[in-house]
């Protein structure tokens, strides 16, 4: 059914307008007379519907206007404006015909409070993280000195990843870089990052993780200010370096990470030692190793010398003692010598074979034998007894 026909049907004999006619005309007048404009006021009666659309009133001391902000427009904002917030809205004034209500269709909304809604959202999420102890400096873990496996959560085709690969290849090629690709901005990016971080948790033998992106607008970086992303970062089982490339704006992701790097390149530098430095360190260790052994063997040699000296002097002393003893023995041996006895006038009888003859029975009559006296031998013969 056409509009013309509808309008025609609404005309009554007394010349009265229908409700629809009036509201439609009012809407046309309002939309023609009030072009899109900025309006300042205080948010009141805020309500977010299931559909994602926001309904609220803007008011000042003496008036108020109903407002709607559709989901396609409000999804760019970090959070709904709390009641009482002073805001600027950019809006199209219109009349909502079904309710005969004058209202603003809001397409943009800025908080006039310090930092605006972004700051507000940031502070809110930060307070929640603080409450759970996730920003406690005592949680910060030291980075490993010589990482083997490094996880990198970032966009697969961004400059950030290229920089991280280049720096790692130059400084610490020992490493294995495991890229977990994810979108880092735009609708749904935060869910993708959280999924990527969940994957990181399942990688075995991981030493350290880098999460980041290159610089961008505040909205682009906002993904890294989501409380959900920050919590997923805090839940990683290994130390994390956050590099959400922006010198001035610190994101929540930066705050919960163990180390914050200003750029992705700086993150790769923080994650890795320099191969040249490590080689120098190895040289030092090698030198200490050699000196250690030299000192040790020097000490052992000294001790051996001392031991040898002690041993030698002991031996000498013992030898001296032995010499005295020998002299003593010689004296005693001398005293026992049979020659000494012969000197006193005794004689020793021996037969032809040298056997000593000690008894009468050994001297049959006529036996020739020899007598040893002190100065020699004489021949003798036994006579008749």
């Amino acid at each position, binding site marked *: 059914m056409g509009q013309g026909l509808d309008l025609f049907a609404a005309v009554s004999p007394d010349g009265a307008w229908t409700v629809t006619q009036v509201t439609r005309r009012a809407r046309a007048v309002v939309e023609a007379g009030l072009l899109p404009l900025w309006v300042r006021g205080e948010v009141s009666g805020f309500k977010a519907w299931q559909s994602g659309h926001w309904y609220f009133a803007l008011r000042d001391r003496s008036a108020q206007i109903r407002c709607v902000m559709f989901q396609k427009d409000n999804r760019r904002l970090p959070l709904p404006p709390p009641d009482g917030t002073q805001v600027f809205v950019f809006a199209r004034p219109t009349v909502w015909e079904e309710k005969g209500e004058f209202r603003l269709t809001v397409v943009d909304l800025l908080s006039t409070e310090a930092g605006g809604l972004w700051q507000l959202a940031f502070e809110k999420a930060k307070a929640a993280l603080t409450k759970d102890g996730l920003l406690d400096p005592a949680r910060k873990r030291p980075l490993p000195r010589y990482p083997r496996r490094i*996880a990198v959560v970032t966009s697969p085709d961004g400059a950030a990843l290229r920089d991280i690969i280049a720096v790692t290849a130059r400084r610490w090629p020992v490493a294995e870089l495991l890229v977990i690709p994810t979108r880092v901005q735009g609708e749904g990016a935060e869910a993708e990052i959280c999924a990527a971080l969940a994957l990181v948790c399942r990688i075995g033998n991981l030493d350290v993780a880098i999460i980041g992106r290159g610089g961008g607008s505040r909205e682009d970086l906002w993904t890294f200010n989501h409380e959900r992303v920050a919590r997923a970062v805090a839940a990683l089982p290994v130390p994390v370096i956050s590099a959400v490339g922006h010198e001035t704006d610190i994101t929540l992701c930066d705050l919960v990470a163990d180390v914050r790097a200003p750029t992705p390149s700086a993150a790769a530098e923080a994650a890795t030692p320099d191969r040249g430095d490590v080689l120098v360190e190895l040289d030092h260790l090698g030198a200490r190793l050699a000196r250690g052994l030299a000192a*040790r063997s020097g000490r*052992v040699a000294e001790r051996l010398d001392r031991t040898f000296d002690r041993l030698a002097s002991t031996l000498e002393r013992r030898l001296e003692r032995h010499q005295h003893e020998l002299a003593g023995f010689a004296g005693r041996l001398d005293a026992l010598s049979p020659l000494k006895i012969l000197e006193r006038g005794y004689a020793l009888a021996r037969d032809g074979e040298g056997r000593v003859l000690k008894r009468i029975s050994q001297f049959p009559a006529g036996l020739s034998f020899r007598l040893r006296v002190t100065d020699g031998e004489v021949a003798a013969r036994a006579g008749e007894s």
Partner: protein
Amino acid sequence: MAPSARGREALSFTQQLERLEEIVRRLEGQDLDLDQALKLFEEGVERLREARDRLAAAEVQVKQVLADHAGNLKVEDFDG
């Protein structure tokens, strides 16, 4: 920590360097006989050589990790 000879292959670079530092400290310490000192020295030299080899031979590896539809981890070469 005195790893067995069998376990040596599995040592990470970090563990290798820690062991090397420990060896140096012990060698610089006081109570070692020459035999122990020599053994430690030999192990130290070996670890030093291994560590240098690792640094010399290395070329950075870049891979990407994805989850397949069943949720299993999939590691592929990355050629970005």
